[in-house]
């Protein structure tokens, strides 16, 4: 037996203005009345920070900043944004949970291939499935402005060597594949990560196949 929770369709309309992204594969909404602060160093290709407040378990909003540094040519882009995250669907199973998140936002983009700033818009979606031993997520982010269009697609597959509980440290081994379009990077960037979390603190740390560090820290309170 499993249960399905579907937030009100009216809330979808609130997302008519869409716009920003989540670099980390963690959930963009932790829990109702909770605040999530996240920072990620993505192997020198991406740097991102976010702070979201969730008034309910199916909606969160807040500011973020992301910077992309191309390894194809000397191109960089940075975007400061305001974003809304929406839990479109959740499946609560006896020993598992699956979610579909969508998000969007608007921001201000700057870069070294154009002067001044441009309005940036972003839409994204994430599907994740997790038990206490297995984790999988697929995420896609589209960033656009009058000067560029790029997408960041991220796949994460993880397993835990033991089943954690609320009061114990959770340990996960995660393989991440990330593909950048829009003249940011050629080929999929693969990384092996170790994920640790306990209480409201979470950290991912690892290295890509290029030998670059991939680090993410998140705090929920």
């Amino acid at each position, binding site marked *: 037996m499993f249960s399905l929770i579907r937030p009100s369709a009216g809330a979808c309309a609130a997302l008519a203005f869409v716009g920003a992204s989540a670099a980390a594969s963690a959930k963009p909404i932790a829990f109702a009345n909770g605040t999530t602060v996240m920072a990620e160093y993505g192997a020198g290709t991406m740097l991102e920070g976010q702070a979201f407040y969730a008034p309910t*378990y199916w909606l969160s909003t807040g500011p973020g900043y992301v910077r992309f540094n191309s390894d194809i040519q000397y191109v960089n882009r940075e975007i400061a944004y305001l974003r809304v995250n929406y839990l479109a669907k959740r499946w609560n199973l006896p020993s598992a949970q699956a979610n579909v998140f969508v998000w969007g936002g608007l921001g201000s983009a700057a870069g070294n291939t154009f002067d001044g700033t441009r309005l940036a818009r972003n839409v994204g979606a994430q599907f994740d499935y997790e038990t206490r031993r297995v984790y999988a997520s697929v995420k896609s982010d589209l960033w656009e402005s009058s000067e560029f269009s790029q997408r960041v697609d991220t796949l994460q597959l993880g397993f835990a060597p033991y089943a954690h*509980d609320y009061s114990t440290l959770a340990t996960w081994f995660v393989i991440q594949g990330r593909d950048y379009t829009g003249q940011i990077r050629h080929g999929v960037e693969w990384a092996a990560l170790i994920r640790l979390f306990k209480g409201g603190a979470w950290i991912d740390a690892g290295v890509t196949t290029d030998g670059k560090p991939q680090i993410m820290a998140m705090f929920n309170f």
Partner: protein
Amino acid sequence: MKILKAILATLLVCGAVTSNAATIEMEVNGLVCAFCAQGIEKKLRTFPETSDVVVSLEERLVAVSTKEGKDIADDELRRALTDAGYTVVNIQRPDESIDAVRARLKESPR
């Protein structure tokens, strides 16, 4: 040491029998990570009647105890967990203190 354990166990049992505080256990679906537990605990502690909360991912269990002479209706608890994003499968009111529930969870085999 055994005597001390026996005294503690007796006190726990006596506490369950003589106290007017209620212990409520809920079986919950979707309870798979510490963040889930954190959100549920935070929500349940907003009730003025709540004295303590225990969450076990292993047993898919959320237990809440109330203050002396207080209670929380099943409908309110079910709504609280639904509003937190989880699904309550059933609600029981065992005749034991929340400390006894905590001890039982600690002893349950992994």
